[in-house]
């Protein structure tokens, strides 16, 4: 077991960015765990949803960005609907995914290929945007 030293300001910028993208109040969470208890995707997760939030509260951005959990989250919003504190954890997960993509900078779907895809009139634009982001890991 490794001991983690909490350096509060180390990832201040990243945490701020998460707050900015999601517009959620991380400190409103009182760690009741209802998000985890109701989550349908926990079997695929290495860090439980409420633990993701706790890591964010402690400023441990590195742990959350490296976790499998953020990619297992199905954005079903069950956690958000049931949270007694009104914290939308699904939004936070999306914000972390976005930061990951922005930091990596290479999308799976190349921008130059979009034109080709769009000639197919039946392809919804939203699907293209999703593909750009979600499959880039």
């Amino acid at each position, binding site marked *: 077991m490794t001991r983690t030293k909490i350096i509060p300001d180390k990832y201040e910028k990243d945490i701020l960015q998460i707050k900015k993208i999601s517009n959620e109040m991380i400190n409103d969470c*009182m760690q*009741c*765990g209802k998000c985890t*208890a109701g989550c349908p995707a926990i079997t695929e997760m290495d860090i439980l949803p*409420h633990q993701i939030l706790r890591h964010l509260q402690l400023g441990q951005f590195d742990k959350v960005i490296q976790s499998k959990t953020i990619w297992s989250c199905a954005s079903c919003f*069950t956690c958000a609907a*049931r949270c*007694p*504190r009104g914290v939308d954890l699904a939004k936070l997960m999306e914000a972390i995914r976005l930061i990951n993509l922005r930091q990596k900078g290479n999308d799976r779907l190349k921008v130059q290929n979009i034109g080709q895809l769009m000639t197919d009139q039946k392809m919804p634009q939203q699907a293209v945007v999703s593909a750009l982001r979600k499959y880039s890991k």
Partner: protein
Amino acid sequence: MRKIGVFVCWCGSNIAATVDVKQVVEEAKKMPGVAYAADYQYMCSEIGQNMMKEVIDKHNLDRVVVAACSPRMHENTFRRAAEEAGINPYLVEIANIREQCSWVHKDKEAGTEKAIALTRAAVAKVTLNSELVPGEIDVVKKALIIGGGIAGIQSALDIADAGYKVDIVEKTPSIGGKMAQLDKTFPTLDCSACILTPKMVDAAKHPNITLHTYSEVEKISGYVGNFNVQIKKKARYVDMDKCTGCRICTEKCPSKKAKSEFEEGLKNRGAVYIPFAQAVPNVPVIDTDECIKLKTGKCGLCEKLCPSNAIKFDDKDEIITEEYGAIVVASGYDIIDLNKFGEYQYDHPDVITSLEFERITNAAGPTNGKFLRPSDGEKPKKVVFIQCVGSRDKTERGKSYCSKICCMYTAKHSMLIKEKYPDIEAYVFYIDVRTPGKNFDEFQRRAVEKYGVQYIKGMVGKIFPEGKKLMVHGVDTMSGETLVIDADMVVLAAATKAKSDAIDLKRKLNISTDINNFFTEAHPKLRPVETASAGIYLAGACQGPKDIPETVAQSSAAAAKVIGLLNKSKLVNNPCVSAVDESLCSGCLACTEMCPYDAISYKNIEIDDHGKKIKKVVADVNEALCHGCGGCTVTCRPGAIDLKGFTNKQILAEVDAICH
């Protein structure tokens, strides 16, 4: 020229940190009429007050301005000090440079500037102040208690024991309230009925107490010492004097479809019913929505069977009017509606609230005290308790506050199960355990250490009924383990909330409520049982979530305040009331329309207009009823009404001084 003294308070660092008090003093010295100005660290202290008195005497001051905290806090303190120094107390003005300057500003320069402006306004106003002498009002030596739960009963007994008459108005057919529904009480595990019912009987038998059950407060007017209250006594359809409580009517009533309120809907009752065995008064009442006779004209079986002719189907609602000197509000609480929490399946018969649990374990309850599932009457093997259902919930489904009593009663419930049936497994899902009362934490730990109740820190996410079982999906946040428990019963500790009709009562009483509709005390620390309206006091959970020991303590405290009030032969009136200049009044009586206290009426007078006698109508203020709100003064078109102590001239002088 006036001789005004200005005293600037530091309030320790409360004011001095953001306001340059020395500069305020220097500026004050230059203001017209100011003969003396000084600052002191704590003006409200004995030394500060003595300093004020000495200066008044030495410099022959005739008016005083204190630049300090809110007048709500210490206006009376300084008025009294001035009076002791020989000045009429209404020649004292407060400039609120704490709440309005230092507490809201960070910039010392801006704060100081505002403090000087407010002091200048107070000086300008006090220059025009005149001596006021309060009048006296009589006190009706009788108190009204709204609500007949443990809070109301305790207050009533205390006041009645002190020798004053007390009336209890209770909405339901019996007194006793929520406590009567409970099985055991924490932390001593006393039988609730055993400690409550003797008190109910005491209240009913006390020569000084009158019970108005099945009654509601309809209208309240008047003021401290002289409240005029209309009480609606709902038609009971049973003659209270004739009824012997034999219960033939309740047993034979053919209509048995109504859910018993007392049994939390777990049992049916007849259309004619006594809420519970120990009800006080032990007289049935007929439910108009259920009674076949009242709905269709047929039946009337109870009337035929009653051996004492007590049933009277022609009974009518009755309104009685009573006078009271003081009112105690003890209207209690409710629990929230759980239908919004779909994930907890409250519509499933085996998912119950804690109050329903109390009935199920109660020996007099629907299962005669046997712990059985409501769905099939079988004995459960696993019971899951879920705490904070809707409490500490900031979303619109719940209540943002902690309901305070659930940690303790859930520990109590789990212990009661384990005591009776050691083979039943009990699990408690909690977020935090909050048990700060006397012997409370020991009580909760006993559930864990002695009875082996499994406490799991974490919330339940969802409950799925599967066959006869309820699959409870939860998490142990400590170990990070997700759990599924195949429970037979789930008990939800639902959040408490203010009574749904609290807002109605607040309007009738002219008192205030907080954001959650609980009644607000006059001061959270120093006046916890009083409201901002004189003569109206609070007791119990209508003020916020409270357990029984706290409720009883507060009820006795409210009673002590009432006794103190009723003990006075005369009350001193607020002299800051409105006055009519009859020569200016045009008799339009717009003021009578707007007065919220019905304090203004009219009278016919005869005036001498250059030798000609003219009759005219003018507004007439009842000084005892006037609260000095000032509404009439701004309504008055000819400007004939002025508020003593806050005249138009004084207010304009203040405005001029600020715009200086």
